[in-house]
């Protein structure tokens, strides 16, 4: 007779971030399905099935905190995963600490989240410092100055644009920096400014939906610039929104190139595609790995109910997730690789960084 362990999930099911929330949930659900499909997981002598208790946070700090509170006190889950928005994670972290329940976030990027001396806070995805470092390094390797930005006026966009500028240093010529609110879709004014600034390259720090629109508007306006995008822009879904001629030559960072010739990525991508009928997504992969991190920690701790022990185990674990090797440092931050991929003219992608994982068209 099997026991069931319930993980708490905080995510956006409604509101403006419901779309990325969906990817996150897909990752969680795929992991649960696979684990349960394989008969569950073994801790000590007992086999456990996995269940999720999901609460909506709408990217609202108060809602996130309420959901967190409810998970740790009413549902009494041993571990909580998820979240999309950094400020919400910032409100959830202290509750995790108060009640001694580990919180593993899988999407928020604000670097400050793992700088709060909160031993119960873990982050599986790369934070903005890590992402920015990889991007800055790439940008310095090409002849892209002056560089312009179009970025979401939220945690991810502002964090990226400001961070990369800082890393590039004062000597690097920046053309124009434009922010837009989530939900805005008219980039005409940014494009005008980019043209005026004579930019050679443009960084797009946003999700796939505005991203596709921005690229189309940039190309329709006849701007010949090197485009640099985010992980949301290296997918077939993205290609569907545009067509190959718009994308050729564009590069983007990626936490997870779905077609990389790496076994674990292939397996994940295939499973994802089989279940959801579309190409997998970085948020899904990060979230998928989050579940496995929690499960691994439970196995190592030998308990599914003692959050304290699970936390200790989490800080020690080390395993290969689909996004890369998972190991948390003393602040609770993992260091998955950050990839740079480039669109080929035929609508496939190649991996150009990190150098040791580089691969040809069709691999990104």
């Amino acid at each position: 007779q099997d026991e069931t362990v319930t993980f708490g999930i905080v995510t956006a099911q409604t509101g403006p971030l419901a779309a990325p929330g969906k990817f996150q949930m897909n990752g969680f659900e795929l992991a649960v399905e696979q684990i349960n499909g394989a008969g569950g997981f073994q801790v000590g002598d007992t086999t456990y099935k996995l269940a999720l208790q999901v609460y909506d946070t709408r990217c609202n700090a108060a809602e996130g905190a309420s959901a967190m509170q409810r998970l740790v006190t009413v549902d009494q889950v041993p571990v909580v995963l998820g979240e999309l928005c950094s400020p919400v994670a910032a409100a959830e972290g202290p509750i995790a600490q108060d009640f001694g329940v580990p919180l593993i976030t899988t999407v928020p990027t604000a670097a400050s989240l793992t700088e709060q001396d909160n031993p119960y806070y873990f982050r599986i995805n790369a934070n903005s410092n890590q992402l920015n470092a990889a991007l800055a390094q790439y940008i310095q390797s090409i002849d892209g100055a002056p560089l312009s930005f179009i970025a979401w006026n939220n945690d991810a966009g502002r964090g990226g644009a400001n961070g990369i500028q800082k890393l590039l240093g004062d000597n690097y010529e920046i053309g124009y920096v434009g922010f837009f609110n989530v939900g805005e879709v008219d980039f005409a004014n940014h494009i005008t400014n980019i043209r005026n600034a004579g930019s050679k390259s443009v960084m797009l720090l946003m999700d796939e939906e505005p991203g596709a629109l921005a690229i189309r508007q940039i190309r329709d306006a006849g701007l010949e610039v090197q485009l640099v995008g985010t992980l949301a822009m290296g997918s077939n879904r993205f290609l569907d929104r545009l067509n190959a001629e718009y994308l050729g030559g564009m590069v983007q960072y990626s936490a997870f190139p779905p077609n990389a010739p790496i076994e674990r990525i292939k397996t994940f991508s295939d499973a994802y595609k089989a279940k959801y009928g579309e190409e997998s997504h970085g948020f899904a992969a990060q979230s998928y790995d989050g579940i496995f991190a929690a499960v691994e920690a439970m196995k190592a701790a030998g308990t599914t109910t003692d959050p304290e022990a699970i936390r200790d185990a989490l800080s020690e674990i080390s395993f290969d997730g689909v996004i890369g090797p998972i190991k948390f440092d003393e602040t609770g931050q993992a260091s998955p690789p950050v990839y740079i991929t480039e669109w080929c003219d035929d609508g496939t992608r190649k991996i150009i960084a990190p150098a040791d994982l580089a691969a040809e068209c069709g691999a990104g």
Partner: protein
Amino acid sequence: MTRSFSNLAALACLVLGALAPLIFGGQPYVLYVLTLALCYTIPAIGVNILYGYTGLVSLGHMGFAGVGAYTTALLMKDVGVPFVPALLGGALAAGVLGVLVGIPCLRLRSHFFIVVTLAVGMILFTLFNNLDALTGGAEGLPGIPRPAPFSIGPIDFEFRSLTGFYMLTFVVTALIFALQFVLVRSDFGRSLSSVRQDEALASARGVNVFGHKLMAFALSTAIAGAGGAMKVLFLRAAAPMSFDMHESINLMMMLILGGAGYLVGPVVGAITFIAVPEFLRIAAEMRFIFFGFVLLVLARFAPRGICGLAESAYKKLGRREKTVVGYS
């Protein structure tokens, strides 16, 4: 509004509020939701003074709450100011901004004033979001400390635990509620009320309409500032999204739903508005659809808010016929 009803309701809220930790001691989640509701009750009281009594609509009040919130948070986090002066500082900052906005804008006709408050709210949100160096920008401001513990004689007070912080929020709310009580029952309150009912008449009777509006606006923004401060101290993180236009509109809704112009309207409204969606969490993606229907039903059947509904029930119960209104 009958006084006996209002007084009774106020008393009931006070007693229930004070006893909540005993009643819900074993249910931290309930206590949590109550604390959050109190954090919204405070700015809702501010809006009640402004809208319920003076008749001015503000769609940017959470912006002022945000000013109080960030001021208090930064004072405590970066400067190390203790709780009480920091809270007062937050309220003061919001109130001063209220005066600065009010002086040019309160002379505008009422619906223009609405859009000005909307605009000010948007502008404040933009500042919270964009002034990365000061407010932490869009990534939010994590790590806001809770008030330091202290002891009076043998009794220790601490605010890290849920119960401790609940009691603190309760005391702050009760004080502000008392302020509301004293103000609206005074000559000042009567003057505000006259401004709402008929500005021309009020000024013909000697009410400095602008002055009274300004005073009401300043008080109300200062109170909102205190509420915002309590909210971020409770969440221990500040985020621009916590003070955006949607939150401002929600605040207005809370009051209307609870009953604008009733002493306990803000309390009832905030609790309803916070608790119902929490209760609906079980409905997952459908919860705001359900909540929307709840709002439609309330709008239809509680035209003067929940307090209005309760008041008519109370009157029916009492059946105390007052002077018969009619012809001679």
